[in-house]
């Protein structure tokens, strides 16, 4: 087959996205063709594809690491009927650990334990690692050189997010905490902003 027209190219892009086991970036999609059709055409065809698929059970979405076809949530009730097992429900320990890693990354296990107030069992970390949602991105330069965990692109992809900034906003507690600081400042000889900041960095360490 010779992809001569934009319509042909669209079919090739569609086939590539339908078979891809991971989201495909525009730069990858350009590699499908020789010569390179340029990112503008590829983007336009992606937009067209998104429209073509707009009334189907499957939709074309843009995720952290590129474009991907996925089923619409309304169809899950049908698809679930074919499944042998439900996708796992995660315990609160797993979810809270994930939240701390997602919002505070990079963090050590010690950091997580400090926020949660309990020991983090290795199985919790393993659950998140084997799901491919977190990984070790380095080690903190403190005694024991503890591993630093961060969320992966796959976590964003699987949660349907393009960037970490699309994570649900944290609750007003942050505002409450500001209030705490203000009260402290007015009531007592509270540390200055710099000091508070230093403290938080230290705590992180």
């Amino acid at each position, binding site marked *: 087959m010779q992809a001569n027209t934009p319509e042909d190219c669209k079919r090739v892009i569609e086939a590539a996205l339908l078979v891809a086991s991971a989201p495909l970036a525009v730069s990858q999609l350009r590699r499908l063709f020789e010569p390179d059709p340029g990112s503008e055409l590829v983007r336009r065809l992606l937009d067209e594809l998104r429209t073509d698929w707009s009334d189907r059970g499957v939709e074309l979405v843009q995720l952290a690491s590129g474009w991907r076809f996925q089923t619409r949530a309304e169809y899950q009730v049908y698809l679930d009927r074919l499944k042998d097992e439900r*996708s796992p429900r995660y315990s609160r320990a797993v979810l*809270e650990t994930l*939240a701390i890693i997602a919002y505070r990354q990079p963090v050590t296990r010690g950091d997580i334990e400090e926020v949660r107030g309990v020991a983090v069992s290795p199985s919790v970390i393993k659950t998140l690692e084997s799901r491919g949602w977190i990984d070790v991105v380095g080690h903190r330069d403190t005694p024991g050189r503890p591993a630093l965990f961060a969320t992966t692109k796959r976590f964003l992809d699987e*949660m349907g997010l393009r960037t970490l900034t699309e994570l649900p906003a944290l609750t007003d507690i942050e505002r409450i905490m500001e209030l705490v600081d203000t009260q402290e400042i007015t009531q007592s000889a509270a540390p200055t902003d710099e000091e508070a900041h230093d403290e938080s960095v230290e705590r992180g360490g």
Partner: protein
Amino acid sequence: MNLPLDLPPHETVAEREAVARIYGEPLLELPRDLYIPPDALEVILEAFEGPLDLLLYLIRKSNLDILDIPMAPLTNQYLVYVEAMRRNNLELAADYLLMAAMLLEIKSRMLLPRPPKAVEDDGLDPRAELVRRLLEYEQMKMAAARLDVLPRAGRDFEWVGVVVTERIVERQPEVSLHELQVAWLRIMKRVRLTRHHTVRRDELSVREHMSMVLRRLEGGAFVVFDSLFDLKLGAAGVVVCFLAVLELVKERMINLAQTDAFAPIYVRLADASEHA
């Protein structure tokens, strides 16, 4: 026990659903007095993610101002829970005991008169660090709940994955039919097969039926001979199937059994006695 802390609870995040189930009955609210049924204690412990979670529950339940926690009653009630846990589950109590020590320390520091000219550090409300930790934990707890409801691959939607004809499974070696054929011919060339090993096209269908019959007999039960033949296959198909059964008998892969003349013939795997 009537602690001053036992005020009517109000709606909080900690109570958005049944805390636990005991014998199938939802435990909508944790017991507010001292008595904890022994069977329920473990369930209650599992409902909390740790001392911060328990403290938050006690605070929110009693509608206390988190910024002005009455340390004495809170500490008392916390210790009541911890004592109950300690009696029943020493292992879990470790984190909880640490928190108990911290609460007692804060309580005692609050009883001390504040020195008029203090070092910077002592100027802080002794509760400040606890409050910070409680708030930070509550924030993460709520974030976790929100993350959990985000549409998630595999649970709320599926990723499309169409098979690539040539490359069946990613990173799995490819095998073409041609390769298979070449492999077979190579073997024959090498070992100079006797007639016993030559395979003709029609014989292959016998071989396929041999596998199919063995699969039918899986599990080791006796199967009625006649039922092995699918009449829909037509005369040729039935003959092939019959040849397959004969071959299986010859190769001692199956056993035939008939109690009397003209009685039904039964077939089962030759190794069925092993399974039984």
